[in-house]
């Protein structure tokens, strides 16, 4: 008998973290303000109270220090889960992430594991000041040795964070911060989740394929609804995993539809869309009726928030791109 409850993404992540800590006492949380405050987004709310200061660790204000000490803890057999307060503050830790976290397993020829999860609230749309709305995923996906996933909804949040923590390789875990407290969804804790590193068709369609992840999944679904009212049937895939990519469902879809648009908040130039487009073109060359089109941020720093909605991919820009694929 399954009981369900309606939860937000913030709640799903909080519940998932709690579950992971109950299941394995090697799991530790680390970060700035994750303890008493429960994080600036309250994702770790209540966890220090219940698991103590040794397992939910408020750190000095130094991201390299947080990730670097987590490497040491992982070497000692712990499973640190790090919260980076905002996407834009992951960069002081970049060296430790790409040179140590990502490489330790390879360097030791598999003798050492790095089961570290680095949680990053990412993306814009919350009216914030500079450095609080970044989408750094491509840089991590480009780095071998890291896995990168993005959740897009409360139920995935609950399951994916547990799966990431249970996983033996390092995972960059991206959370669309504008969704934290937005929509609720029904969680059935007795359900069996899909594997972590899989994409998922979230709306079936036949005319064109729209790929999205994290915050743009909602945008893509809205675009599909709008298109449907005009008689155009869009298939929407939530990529969920950015590295490794799970391209099989994408190829299958694009071979059927012949048209593909990918949308993300990150800059188009060298963003995930570039890689996905290149792979689709390599694998589905003869099926493509049009080039894969990319809808993302312009190649400029994130703008002042008053105009962020004009920069972020929205329903209209996605539909415009879909239209353009039909112009080919």
């Amino acid at each position, binding site marked *: 008998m399954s009981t369900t409850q309606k939860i937000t993404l913030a709640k799903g992540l909080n519940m998932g973290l709690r579950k992971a800590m109950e299941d394995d006492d090697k799991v530790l949380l680390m970060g700035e*303000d994750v303890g008493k405050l429960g994080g600036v987004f309250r994702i770790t709310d209540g966890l220090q109270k219940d698991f103590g200061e040794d397992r939910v660790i408020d750190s*000095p*204000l130094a991201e390299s*220090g947080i990730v670097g000490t987590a490497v040491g803890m992982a070497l000692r057999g712990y499973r640190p889960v790090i919260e980076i307060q905002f996407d834009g*503050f992951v960069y002081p830790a970049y060296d430790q992430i790409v040179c140590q976290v990502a490489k330790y397993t390879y360097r030791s020829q598999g003798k050492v594991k790095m089961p570290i999860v680095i949680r990053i609230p990412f993306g814009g749309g919350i009216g914030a*000041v*500079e450095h*609080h709305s970044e989408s750094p995923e491509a840089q991590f996906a480009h780095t071998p040795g890291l896995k990168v996933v993005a959740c897009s909804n409360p139920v995935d949040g609950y399951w994916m964070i547990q799966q990431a923590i249970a996983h033996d390789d390092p995972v960059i875990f991206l959370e669309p911060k504008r969704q934290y407290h937005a929509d609720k969804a029904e969680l059935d804790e007795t359900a069996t989740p899909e594997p972590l590193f899989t994409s998922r068709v979230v709306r079936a369609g036949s005319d064109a394929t729209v790929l999205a992840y994290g915050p743009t999944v909602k945008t893509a679904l809205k675009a599909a609804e709008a298109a449907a009212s005009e008689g155009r049937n869009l298939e929407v895939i939530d990529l969920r995993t950015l590295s490794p990519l799970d391209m099989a469902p994408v190829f299958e879809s694009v071979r059927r539809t012949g048209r593909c648009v990918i949308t993300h908040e990150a800059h188009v130039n060298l963003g995930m869309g570039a890689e996905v487009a290149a792979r689709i073109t390599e694998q589905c060359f003869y099926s493509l009726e049009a080039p894969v089109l990319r809808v993302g941020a*312009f190649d400029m720093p994130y703008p*002042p928030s008053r105009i962020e909605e004009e920069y972020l991919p929205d329903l209209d820009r996605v539909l415009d791109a879909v239209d353009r694929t039909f112009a080919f």
Partner: protein
Amino acid sequence: MSDPVSFGPDLAEVFGPSQSDGGPDLVQLLTPEGERVHHPEFDHDFSAEELRGLYRDMVLTRRIDVEATALQRHGELGIWAQLLGQEAAQIGAGRALRPQDYVFPTYREHGVAYCKGVDPLRLLGLFRGVDQGGWDPNENNFGLYTIVIGAQTLHATGYAMGMQRDGVVGTGDPDRDSAVIAHFGDGASSQGDVNEAFIFAASYNAPVVFFCQNNQWAISEPIERQTRIPLYQRALGFGFPGIRVDGNDVLATYAVTKAALQRAREGNGPSFVEAYTYRMGAHTTTDDPTRYRLNDELEHWKLKDPIERLKVYLRRNGLVDQQFFDDLDAEAKEMGHHLREGCKALPDPKPMDQFDYVFTEMTDEIAAQRDEFAAYLASFEGSHS
């Protein structure tokens, strides 16, 4: 040899005990009760006019802060970083500067900006989301607000190294000799960048004053998470002096910062000033400090209010009359009006203009994106899907 040995110098002996009230090393010239005290090293003969000026500066700064906080509550600003309680630290530091000195602020240096002649209205743009720092840093020698914790301390050090190369350090000419002040918080002291700034500044003997407002908190984390000894002592390990001043005492902060700047200008290198103060408000308007600190603490610090103590001193010594307060009140009201009206009138950024700012000259790539975007926007005129 397994018995515990005393290992190296006894820290308590070297540094003295850490005390929540600032400890015995706290430099103070005006007590919380408004009593003028003297210090053997750091003192200054303040004229009545100077004292009234510092009082006025603090009152206006608090007004800026209160007004901006209200604007945020009314939805006019997305967020605001309050300085309530830190007025003395900022005015003391800000007034110690000469025009040729350069400031590298955090996101909270509204009082210093005001001292440097930046129109407070300009500070609102960042928080309203219409710009990311709307003033020209070179107009008032006041850098842009820096949000990435600690990054500006390196910029400050590099700027100071530039001053050395420009020959404006240690010439003996007071109008020429220059220094840099780098602002940061107690939490920031843990960042690698800040410690590297100490190293570079020491290594090159750069004319920079590291001015840390220890307001006891980095969002929810108390100062004890960042250091287990008084923070000003951090500097000693890098080979330059550190000093703790009562950051709620505008006179002491002024005197100490002035000495530190002068030292730098004269070519004697970096120093560290820890302004021991307290963030009486929330971290920002989105923070809820009741989740992590006791009200008692706040009440305790309210008794040390930086403005009150100078008011008491001015009154008690007959340096002000009712007219002064009335005038100041009017001035503060005028400031409030300026901010309220000005804020709403701040022009929204123009999306199309943004393409201009990425590089000093627009690249073809960016021009193409701009043109596409323009064509896209134009496609909505007339019909709309």
